[in-house]
C-alpha cells in the first residue's frame, strides 16, 4: 500500500488539551486578548486598513448575492452537502484515499499539527529539497509549516503576493482571504525596496505587483518541492481543487518534481459536481466574484506524455482537532469553507482586526476554532468577546450557527471553572436573586436608591461597579420606583397607571 502515516510515538498525549498549530509556544502571545485589542483600536493605520478591506468585501458580497437570486437555495444545498459528508466522513476519507492512490498519488494521514508538519518536512528531506515554493494555505499556517520549514533550513518561497508580504514582514496572516490586509502600500513598498533584486521604480501598486512578479518568476523554476493547500478534496476521483486569482498556484505546482498538498479532512466533497455547488457559494461569499480567475483540479502526478507536472504527488490528510470537533458538539463548524464572510461582517473583527485574536484564524470562525487548537484556557476570551448579534451566521454560506457554538464554549468554560471569580459571583448572585422574586424586587428597590445617589442632572456619569460603562458613556438615572412597584400600587388604586414619575 502506498499510503503512509505517522506512528503513535509521534502522537500527542490524549489528555493534553488543544492540538496546537505546532509543538512550540511561539504562538502564546505575551499580551492578553484585551490588551491586544486595545493596541489594535489605537492603531489608526490598522483601522483604515480594516475598514477598506471589510467594507469592500461586504459591498461586493452584497452585490454578488443580489445578482444571484438562487443564492438562498444554493446555501441550503451547500449546508446539506457538507452535513452529508460530515455524517459519512469515514466513508469519504477512505473513498478519497482509494481513488487518490489509484490516480498515482501518495496519501498520508496526520492526527496532529506536529505530525503533519513532520510528514511534510520528511517528504522535503526525501526529495533533497533545498528550496520549496508555497502557495497560500491556511491549513499550512495551522500546522506551523512556515516555521517548520525555516527550522529545517529549507529555503521557503511564499508565492502568493499577500503571503510574500507576510514573509517579508516577518509576521502572520491577519485575514484568511487577504493575509496582508494590515499592511499599507508604503510599508509594502519599503519591504520590496529592501528585499527585491529589481524593485519597483514608480510608487504605484501596479509597479509593486510587477516587482513581485519579477522577484518570484525564476523561483518557480528553481524549486524542488511545491506545497499547496486545497479548497476541496474530491472523493470519487481522489482529486484536489484549489481556487486562486494570481496564477502563482499553478506556477508553483507544475515545475517542481514533487508536489505536496496539505488539507484538513473536512475539505471532502463527494464529487466534482458537489464541488461546483460549493464553489458558487465560496467565491461570492469571499470576494464577491462569481468565480475566481483560476479553478484548478489536480489528479495524480504527471502522466506519460505530459510536458510538465510533478513526478510525485503527495496528499497529507490532517485531523488536528477536527475529529474532536465532531465528537464534542462542534460538528457544524466542519461545514466551514473558509470564505471569510463572517469576519468581514463582524462588528468586533472590524474594530480589532485579525492579529488581536492571537490565533491562526480570526473573527467568528476563529473564536470557535482557536479554543480547539490552543485549548479553552488560553483562548477563553475569544468566544466571550462577542455580542452574539448573529450577523455572522446570516452571511455564512453554509449556515454555521456561530453564536450557538460560541455560547457552547462559554457554557463549557463555566462548567470547567475557567470563568473569572467576578463573573461567577456576579452571575451567581444575580441568578440567586432572580429565582426568588421577593428578594429580586427588594434588591431592585435598593439598587434604584443607591443609583439615584450618584445621579447628577438626570445622568450617572460615575459610579462604583459601573466604571466600565461610565468610562465611555453616560448612564441614565433610573426612575424612583420600579415598574412592578408602580403597577402594583396602581392596581390597588393608590396611583394612576401610566405615570412616569
Amino acid at each position, binding site marked *: 500500500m502506498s499510503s503512509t502515516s505517522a506512528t503513535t510515538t509521534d502522537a500527542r498525549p490524549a489528555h493534553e488539551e488543544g492540538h496546537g498549530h505546532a509543538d512550540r509556544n511561539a504562538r502564546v502571545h505575551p499580551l492578553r486578548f484585551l490588551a491586544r485589542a486595545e493596541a489594535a483600536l489605537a492603531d489608526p493605520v490598522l483601522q483604515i486598513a480594516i475598514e477598506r478591506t471589510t467594507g469592500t468585501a461586504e459591498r461586493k458580497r452584497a452585490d454578488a448575492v443580489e445578482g444571484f437570486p438562487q443564492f438562498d437555495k444554493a446555501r441550503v444545498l451547500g449546508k446539506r452537502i457538507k452535513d452529508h459528508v460530515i455524517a459519512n466522513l469515514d466513508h469519504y476519507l477512505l473513498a478519497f484515499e482509494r481513488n487518490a492512490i489509484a490516480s498515482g498519488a501518495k496519501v498520508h494521514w496526520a492526527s496532529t499539527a506536529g505530525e503533519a508538519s513532520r510528514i511534510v518536512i520528511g517528504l522535503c528531506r526525501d526529495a533533497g529539497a533545498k528550496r520549496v515554493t508555497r502557495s497560500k494555505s491556511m491549513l499550512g499556517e495551522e500546522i506551523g509549516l512556515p516555521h517548520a520549514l525555516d527550522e529545517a533550513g529549507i529555503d521557503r518561497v511564499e508565492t502568493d503576493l499577500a503571503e510574500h508580504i507576510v514573509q517579508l514582514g516577518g509576521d502572520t496572516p491577519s485575514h484568511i482571504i487577504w493575509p496582508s490586509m494590515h499592511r499599507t502600500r508604503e510599508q509594502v513598498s519599503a519591504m520590496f525596496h529592501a528585499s527585491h533584486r529589481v524593485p519597483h521604480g514608480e510608487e504605484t501598486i501596479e509597479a509593486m505587483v510587477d516587482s513581485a512578479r519579477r522577484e518570484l518568476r525564476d523561483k518557480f523554476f528553481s524549486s524542488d518541492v511545491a506545497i499547496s493547500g486545497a479548497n476541496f478534496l474530491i472523493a470519487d476521483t481522489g482529486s484536489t481543487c484549489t481556487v486562486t486569482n494570481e496564477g502563482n498556484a499553478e506556477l508553483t505546482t507544475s515545475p517542481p518534481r514533487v508536489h505536496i498538498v496539505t488539507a484538513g479532512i473536512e475539505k471532502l466533497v463527494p464529487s466534482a459536481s458537489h464541488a461546483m455547488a460549493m464553489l458558487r457559494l465560496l467565491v461570492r461569499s469571499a470576494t464577491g466574484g462569481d468565480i475566481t480567475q483560476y479553478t484548478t483540479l489536480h489528479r495524480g502526478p504527471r502522466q506519460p506524455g505530459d510536458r510538465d507536472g510533478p513526478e510525485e504527488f503527495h496528499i497529507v490528510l490532517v485531523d488536528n482537532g477536527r475529529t474532536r470537533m465532531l465528537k464534542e458538539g462542534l460538528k457544524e463548524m466542519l461545514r466551514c469553507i473558509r470564505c471569510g464572510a463572517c469576519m468581514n461582517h463582524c462588528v468586533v473583527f472590524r474594530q480589532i482586526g485579525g492579529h488581536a485574536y492571537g490565533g491562526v484564524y480570526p473573527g467568528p470562525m476563529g473564536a470557535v476554532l482557536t479554543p480547539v487548537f490552543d485549548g479553552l484556557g488560553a483562548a477563553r476570551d475569544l468566544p466571550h468577546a462577542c455580542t452574539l448579534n448573529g450577523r455572522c451566521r446570516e452571511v455564512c454560506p453554509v449556515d454555521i450557527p456561530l453564536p450557538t457554538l460560541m455560547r457552547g464554549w462559554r457554557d463549557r468554560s463555566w462548567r470547567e471553572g475557567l470563568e473569572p471569580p467576578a463573573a461567577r459571583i456576579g452571575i*451567581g448572585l444575580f441568578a440567586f436573586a432572580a429565582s426568588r422574586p421577593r428578594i429580586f424586587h427588594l434588591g431592585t428597590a435598593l439598587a434604584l436608591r443607591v443609583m439615584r445617589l450618584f445621579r447628577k442632572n438626570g445622568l450617572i456619569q460615575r459610579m462604583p461597579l459601573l466604571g466600565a460603562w461610565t468610562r465611555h458613556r453616560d448612564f441614565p438615572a433610573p426612575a424612583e420606583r420600579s415598574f412592578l412597584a408602580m403597577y402594583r400600587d396602581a392596581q390597588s388604586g393608590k396611583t394612576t397607571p401610566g405615570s412616569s414619575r
Partner: protein
Amino acid sequence: MNTSPSAVRVGFFATCLVNAMRPNVGFASLKLLEEAGCIVEVPMQQTCCGQPAFNGGDTRDAAVLARQFIEAFEPFDHVVIPSGSCAGMVKAHYEEALADDPAWAERARRLAARTHEIMSFLVDVMGYAPQGRSLVASATYHDSCSGLRELGVHAQPRAMLGKIQGLELRPLEGHDVCCGFGGTFCVKYAPISNAIVEEKAAAVERTGAQLLLGGDLGCLMNIAGKLSRRKSDVRVLHTVEVLAGMADAPAIAESR
C-alpha cells in the same frame, strides 16, 4: 374594557431593564395592548428571563429562571415582551437551556410559540395600528440584533410609526449593525464596545434626526449613553413610548 370570552389574554413581561430603569416603557406597552383589545395581566412574580446567565455560560441557572418564567406565563394566551432580546431568549433559547429535561423542553417549545416581542405582536397578531396620534419630529430607527435576526422584527415598528402623524422617519446607515451592547460584553470588553457604539452614535447624528427609536432598552441605553457623552441633542426613546403618545417623558439618558 373588553370582557368578551374571545378577548385575548396577555401576560406582560416587563424585563428587568424596563422594570428598573424605565417604567414608562412598561406603561406605554400596557396602553398599546389594551388599545389593541387585549386583557393584560402583569404577573408580579416575574424577575429575569435568564439571558445574562445563559449568555454567560451558566446554563444551569438559566434553566432555573426559564422554568420560573414558564410557570408564571403558561396560563396566558400570549406572552408579550417589550424587548427583542428577552423575547428571543424565550422563543429561540429556552428549549436549548432546558435540553436536558425533555418535559420542560416541550413546555418551553409550546410557550415559545405564544411568546412575542411587542411590536410584532401588535401588528402580526392583533392587526393593531395607532389611531389619531401625532408627533411632529424627525426620527431614525435602530434594529436590535435579536429582534431583527431571531424574531424578524423590522417592518412592524416602521409600519406603526408610519401612522403617527407628523413623524418623519429617516433611514439610519447601518440600521442593522450591532450597537456593541451585547449584555455583559459592553462592560467586559468595554474598549471594543465603545469603539462600536461610537460609530453607531456618529451614524445616528449624521441623519440629523431629532429622535432615535428602537425596540430594546439595552441597545437604547448604550447608544443614548454614548450620544449623551458626546453632548448630542438626539433624544432616545423606546418605540412603544412614541406609539402610545407618551414621548413627552424625559428621553433615555437625557440630561436635565
